[in-house]
């Protein structure tokens, strides 16, 4: 068929040979639906010319029916089993399968498990042969779903899919559809669009590289182009210069000073821009702009809505950090001299985290979790592990990965973990495991700014602490000079710690005592040493 010919031959409009003409007329006569699943021609980047074909002549609608192929993963079969052997397949490629039909039987050492299908559809590909070892969490079979995914889902810009592999609070909402990967299309500069779509784009002087495709495999459909024309730009394409990734080769071409036309702005590749920045640019362009929430924003929306139903008790206190700063300097110079330490420098955060863990040992209720599922009376689950979450502002948005078992780790261990998480956050590689299981959260938003904060609880926890920025402020201090008590004004480094606790289960006194102990630990680092496990 035509689609299989080499691209070069198709791209340029030439005098058709007799054979081509016959073929074209045959194709015109065929009743095959256009643009079904045939691969489309690949147009080299430099050519903007679009081949006029019979598609435009017949005025066919350029949308395709999208049937999604889902890679059905082997679900966790429990018991800590990570891999098992496929004993028997009950389906083969091409079979029709309905939800709850048996797909295969797997076995581990003593247990056999029947795996049933979650979807209705047609089996496309089996990932394993008989008696192969299948890994839990990896796909075992590809199923082509019967129904088309709804428009609402496909239109959403996957702002954070390229970075965050899991959103913090609500992976279920997003996990239903595998994240649509636009990056591979862009970085190869291959644009999938039918000739009809290209003609429309040409007419409107739109470079198809900047249009977000919503068809199969990122294909650009006619509606996408129209939308692009109406709304000015799609949220993906705009990119503020400050957040451009270094890897992009056309970074230098960003002509962001000119808000006149979005069409001349360079697309720097796949990194996400948050909807707010997109709307900011739209404001600049003078138009209202609707943007759906990114996956991270959606997760925040859901979790914050849940969290604000919890009555918060708030407690704020000032902490003098001078002694801690001296201790930290001392430790850092020692680490620098060591040379082979896992971290070369400790920031304040490891101290904050370890002090929290030490204080939690005395007040374990603040590391607990409220269990109120409506059927049984509410109870508290006291948790042994101090998985201290650290709020992080990543390019994709707010994420709260946690440091596991802080109660067993030293300051240096915690610092190494933190560094690792920050690096992962910058690369957008924070995993679901990092985000799950948190028991207590600390937020150092003071690095950005702010003094007094009112942090919102994470709904699966009962306490959260936030630190403002460290300020150098005057304070009174009484010292003995020549046997006489003298009151002086001295500069101190003051940090305000703002705590919020779930007032349904934590009373003010407990929170106050915890905060006071925390303050003591940070103001007197020797006490941290004394309590260290």
């Amino acid at each position: 068929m035509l689609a299989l010919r080499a691209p070069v031959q198709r791209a340029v409009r030439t005098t058709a040979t007799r054979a081509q003409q016959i073929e074209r007329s045959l194709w015109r006569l065929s009743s095959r639906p256009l643009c079904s699943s045939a691969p489309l021609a690949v147009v080299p980047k430099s050519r903007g010319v679009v081949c006029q074909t019979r598609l435009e002549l017949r005025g066919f609608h350029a949308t395709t029916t999208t049937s999604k192929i889902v890679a059905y993963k082997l679900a966790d079969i429990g018991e800590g089993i990570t891999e098992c052997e496929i004993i028997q397949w009950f389906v083969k490629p091409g079979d029709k399968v309905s939800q709850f039909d048996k797909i295969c039987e797997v076995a581990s050492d003593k247990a056999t498990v029947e795996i049933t299908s979650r979807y209705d559809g047609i089996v496309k590909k089996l990932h394993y042969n008989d008696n192969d070892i299948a890994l839990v969490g990896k796909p075992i079979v590809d199923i082509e779903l019967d129904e088309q995914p709804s428009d609402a889902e496909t239109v959403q810009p996957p702002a954070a899919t390229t970075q965050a592999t899991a959103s913090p609070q609500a992976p279920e909402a997003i996990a239903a559809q595998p994240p649509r990967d636009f990056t591979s299309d862009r970085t190869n500069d291959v644009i999938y669009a039918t000739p009809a779509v290209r003609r429309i784009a040409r007419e409107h002087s739109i470079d198809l590289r900047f249009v977000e495709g919503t068809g199969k495999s990122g294909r650009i459909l006619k509606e996408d182009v129209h939308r692009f024309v109406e709304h000015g730009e799609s949220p993906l394409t705009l990119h503020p210069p400050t957040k451009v990734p270094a890897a992009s080769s056309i970074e230098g071409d960003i002509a962001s000073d000119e808000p006149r036309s979005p069409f001349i702005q360079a697309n720097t590749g796949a990194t996400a821009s948050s909807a707010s920045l997109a709307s900011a640019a739209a404001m600049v362009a003078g138009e209202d702009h609707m943007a759906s929430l990114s996956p991270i924003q959606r997760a925040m929306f859901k979790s914050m809505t849940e969290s604000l139903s919890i009555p918060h008790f708030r407690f704020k206190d000032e902490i003098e950090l001078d002694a801690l700063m001296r201790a930290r300097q001392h430790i850092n110079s020692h680490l620098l001299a060591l040379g082979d330490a896992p971290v070369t420098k400790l920031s304040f955060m490891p101290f904050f985290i370890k002090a929290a863990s030490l204080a939690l040992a005395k007040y374990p209720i603040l590391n607990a979790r409220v269990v109120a599922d409506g059927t049984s009376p509410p109870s508290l689950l006291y948790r042994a592990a101090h998985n201290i979450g650290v709020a992080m502002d990543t390019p994709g948005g707010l994420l709260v990965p946690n440091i596991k078992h802080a109660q067993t780790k030293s300051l240096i261990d915690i610092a190494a973990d933190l560094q690792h998480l920050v690096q992962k956050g910058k690369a957008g590689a924070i995993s679901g495991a990092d985000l799950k299981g948190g028991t207590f959260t600390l937020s150092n938003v003071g690095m950005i700014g702010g003094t007094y904060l009112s942090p919102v609880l994470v709904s699966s926890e009962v306490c959260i602490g936030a630190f403002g920025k460290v300020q150098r402020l005057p304070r009174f201090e009484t010292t003995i000079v020549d046997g006489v008590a003298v009151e002086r004004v001295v500069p101190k480094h003051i940090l305000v710690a703002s705590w919020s606790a779930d007032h349904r289960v934590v009373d003010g006194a407990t929170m106050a005592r915890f905060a006071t102990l925390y303050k003591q630990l940070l103001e007197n680092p020797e006490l941290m040493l004394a309590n260290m496990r």
Partner: protein
Amino acid sequence: MLGLLLRCRASLGRLYCQRGIHDAPPPPKALCYVSACTDPYANLAFEDWILRNSDPCSYVLYLWRNRPSIVIGRNQQNPWKECNLALMAERDVVLARRSSGGGAVYHDLGNTNYTVVMPREAFTRNMCAEMVARALQASDIPAYVNARHDVAVDGLKISGSAFKLTKLRAFHHGTMLIDADLTRLHGCLKSQAHDCIDAKGVASVPSPVVNLRDYSLSLDHSSFCDAVLRQFANTFAPPGEVTVVDTAGDLRTIDERRRIQTWDWLYGQTPEFTHRLHRSFSWATVFASVTARHGRITDVSIDTAESALQPPPGSRLLFADAAARLKGVRYHPSDINECLLPVIDSDSPRASELCDWLTSNLSFNTVSSA
């Protein structure tokens, strides 16, 4: 079905099914079946029936005994490697394959089997083993659950367990050696071809076993069943009814009974294995390597030693001919014999020697009439 699934979600720390937001959830439905029949196929078929047809939220206890038989696991078991099939036929020991995993076990009337079928969500490996251990402790036997989820006494295994999980239900079944004939057991689970067969899949882990008779003179099948039933009632719920079932005559399980007696199930479910054998004839020493998958021969290679001198002429052709004929044949003595018959009948004495040897040694411990 989805509604049922949601209702079966186990709440924290409890095994009950949620039936709505009421004050106290009702105890789960519990049933007990006792088999009056000792045919292993009938009993296994009935167990499968319970798994697929019982109420998804219910807990079912099933107690059964088999006449002398060897029961191998679902797939990872190679009957030719695990069992001495010829000896079994001699002693009238039946071969059966169950649908759960695990190794080969010996059953006879001195061994009682228990199966607990429960909602999938409630399944853990230790739960039922601990229940049985408690039943034994109540009968003054110091039983405990070891690291392999088996019930043991004094470091010796008295019960083996296996599990099966489907979408909604799961079962744990296990044996209990009360007064089994252990000498008969040893012979049958020792295959002569054990070292010659390289099998994929998991081999049985032999553990030293002991009868409970050594620890209690009064324990027997019915008192054990009573003790387990009592513990079952304590752990889950008192069974609404205890039904004695004649599993061999049960019409509901006819198809399943037939299915698990077929050659395809008993032998055809074997994963890939390679049987290597060799023999020194007067004219050459021949090495044969036969690979079979799902009980059918997939690959045969017959040859002399690599660095040996050329075998007598015509041998290569003979080897190739025999190898080609054997491909695709069931790994069964009568099938192998039948396919090699034309070669045996030919005039060459070497051909008949070779084929005689192959027929008698491949699948040799299977009885021809089986």
